[in-house]
């Protein structure tokens, strides 16, 4: 029993929490940016895969690590452009288009990988982001080891939370984004472009999603594997509702999920096989469902979410 609680005092556990949460932070931020503008982006799972693969490949081919990050973001924005063009000016079903983008992006990433490496048994490796080494922090007890294991990529995720929160709350652009997800007519009547705002938001959101994927291959691991995204994108869609479309709560949700995942891994080793490991694997997902049941009933959805807008038609 004490062993189960003891996990919480281990620096190792908290370091893992941050590591697991980082891609989710990017994903939830991306999803909430899209949804705040009124577009559901179920392409997220595939965009994670494409970001993971393209960022890693760029570095493998000789770009610096930050170059890989930029490539992943651009690839994500490109898939966002596809999703945006189909759902915003053409007004196609956002569900169907999103699933289509996921299938397309996933398959293209796998295809590209196979074309580049037709005959490899073990995935080729790169040199990933090194752990942060901050001179003074290094010596602080507990906090030192927790943060010392993180990379600059995780810092970027936290910076994105703050940037997006300020953008949405404090800037004219954020005002327009919040308005276009609530009532596109209001935006049109004020002389702004609904199509421009929505496509821009979907592209930027998709770029963030792709960064979530790139974190896995450029920081958490050092190679690209098939199936490595493993539903992380879908978890982000659920966490977006949990976060009520707010960047601050998105961070909280991602950290909670990360903590649960890190915890169940350690719990498995303690119980030593007395309980089937699959039970533990389920825990974070059970949490997602429970959180959704509790939160989603009161969720304040952006009013225009999933409603296509056509100019001059009311």
């Amino acid at each position, binding site marked *: 029993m004490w062993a189960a609680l003891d996990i919480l005092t281990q620096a190792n556990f908290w370091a893992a929490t941050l590591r697991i949460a980082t891609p989710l932070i990017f994903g939830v931020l991306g999803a909430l940016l899209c949804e705040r503008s009124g577009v559901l982006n179920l392409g997220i799972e595939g965009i994670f895969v494409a970001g993971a693969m393209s960022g890693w490949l760029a570095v493998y081919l000789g770009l610096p690590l930050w170059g890989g990050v930029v490539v992943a973001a651009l690839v994500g924005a490109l898939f966002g452009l596809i999703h945006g063009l189909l759902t915003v000016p053409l007004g196609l079903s956002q569900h169907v288009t999103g699933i289509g983008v996921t299938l397309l992006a996933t398959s293209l990433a796998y295809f590209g990988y196979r074309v580049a490496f037709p005959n490899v048994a073990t995935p080729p490796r790169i040199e990933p982001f090194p752990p942060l080494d901050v001179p003074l922090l290094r010596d602080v007890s507990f906090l030192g080891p927790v943060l010392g294991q993180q990379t600059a990529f995780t810092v970027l995720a936290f910076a994105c939370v703050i940037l997006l929160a300020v953008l949405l709350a404090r800037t*004219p*652009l954020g005002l327009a984004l*919040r*308005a276009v997800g609530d009532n596109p007519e*209001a*935006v*049109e009547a*004020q*002389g702004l472009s609904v199509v421009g705002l929505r496509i821009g938001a979907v592209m930027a959101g998709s770029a963030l999603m792709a960064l979530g994927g790139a974190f896995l291959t450029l920081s958490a691991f050092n190679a690209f594997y098939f199936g490595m995204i493993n539903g992380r994108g879908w978890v982000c869609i659920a966490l977006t509702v949990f976060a009520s479309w707010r960047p601050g709560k998105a961070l909280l949700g991602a950290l909670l999920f990360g903590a649960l995942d890190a915890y169940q891994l350690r719990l498995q080793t303690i119980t030593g096989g007395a309980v089937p490991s699959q039970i533990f694997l389920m825990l974070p997902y059970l949490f997602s469902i429970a959180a959704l049941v509790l939160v989603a009933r009161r969720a304040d959805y952006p*009013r225009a979410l999933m409603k296509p807008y056509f100019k001059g038609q009311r």
Partner: protein
Amino acid sequence: MIAPTAPDRPDRTPHHTRPPVLSLSGITKRFGNMVANDAVDLDIRAGEIVALLGENGAGKTTLMSILFGHYVADEGTVHVADAAGRLAPLAGGSAEAALKAGIGMVHQHFTLAENLTGFENIVLGTVPLWRLGFGKAAARSKVARLMRDSGLQADLDVPIGKLSVGEQQRIEILKALYRDVRVLILDEPTAVLTPQEADSLAATVKTLAGKGLAVIFISHKLHEVLALCERVVVLRGGVKVADRPTAGADRATLAELMVGREIPARERMPASLGAPVLRLVGVEVGAPGERDRLEAGDLELNGGEIVGIAGVSGNGQGALAALVAGLKPPRSGLCEIVGQQATRSDPRARLAAGVGRIPEDRHRDGSIGALSVAENYVLETIGSPENQRHGLLRRAAIQARAAQAIRDYDIRCPGPSAPIRALSGGNMQKVVLARVLERAPKLILAHQPTRGLDIGATTDVHRRLLAARERGSGILLISEDLDELFALSDRIAVIHAGHLSPAIEAARLDVRTVGLMMAGHSVGEAA
């Protein structure tokens, strides 16, 4: 301030000698074969309040949509005066261009983002998007000055969704003024207001016009047009049929210009009362805390009379209507409908007892869009032997009866098999009316029976309801339109915050008193 050319003192120059600030010439717009606007010319001068009248489908909305950039005209030009007063052509198809040229529009359905505050809605789109801040202090003081000058008061710092409809409209007008408009278009601005709010809006519009703003006022309500506007432009079938000063015009002449034929005056016989068809004693509907609930309702309605329920929607009419239709049960109190105690929610039993229902929202509750006119017509009697045998629909008989109703009620539609969603609002309402009246109901629930209908269709609905009254039906008329309530009702009760006032003979009431009661004053205070 509002117009750079506007002097601080009221300008005594007669309007017709001033140059126009807005000039439309030869505007034509076609949708397929239909001509929505046919070579329409229109000049508006600074400080002028011009009414734009016309039935639904006459082309008012199309014309204003062209002006505001939602549509592009097929032919014709729009010229707007620039700051120096020179007319310059306006680029079509762009709301941004219209806003830049100084044209503002307050739509009937507000274009406000409900998750933003009033202030945020006002400044939305006025600052370049890539700018980091708003220049909040300057914007604040400008809005404060506009509120002071125009007399438009509203809370700027709560989300729009929490404001009343009147306040939302004031935000809409402030939004236009904030952009220094020279021409303001108001589309059916009083449709959602109480009479007092409408009076205060009229005063505001006059103030603004006094400062040089040109106002285009679109309305169905002719008495408002006559009271407020100096000039009236009438569209019919896309053509401008009149452009005249309001002085010397009256409601009958304007109505005839709009409809293109004489409107027969409504005749009403004195009521000959029958047995009670609805009796409510201390009825409560809806749980405490629920929106739109009835807290205490006492009412008696007899056959052969019309009792009007006045009130701003959301004050408990919905609960009352749901109770009568059998969609909600009474929580407490005594409710007797056509001689039967109603204790449960049972819409089918109500239909069987002889209740006819004209629902508030004919699209959502009155019809099923994908079904045909004939299928919608028999929806409530689908189980009767006339409509089915051994569980199979008698299609031929249904079609024949629907075709008869189409002739009797003059329903304009391609035929009984056409899907009902293809019909205009007025014709859809005629199908609902035919369905209700066919069964000679003892009690008719008419909830906003003419909302959104034009004069022609409204007159028709009124005529049929009065005829049903003469045949002995008791009619519960729930409406926000005081003209309608006074035209039809024998007695009127007012509902406010869930409380139903006693029903008073309409002859002993006036519009002002009822308006005050709708705003929450008691009978004594109001009278």
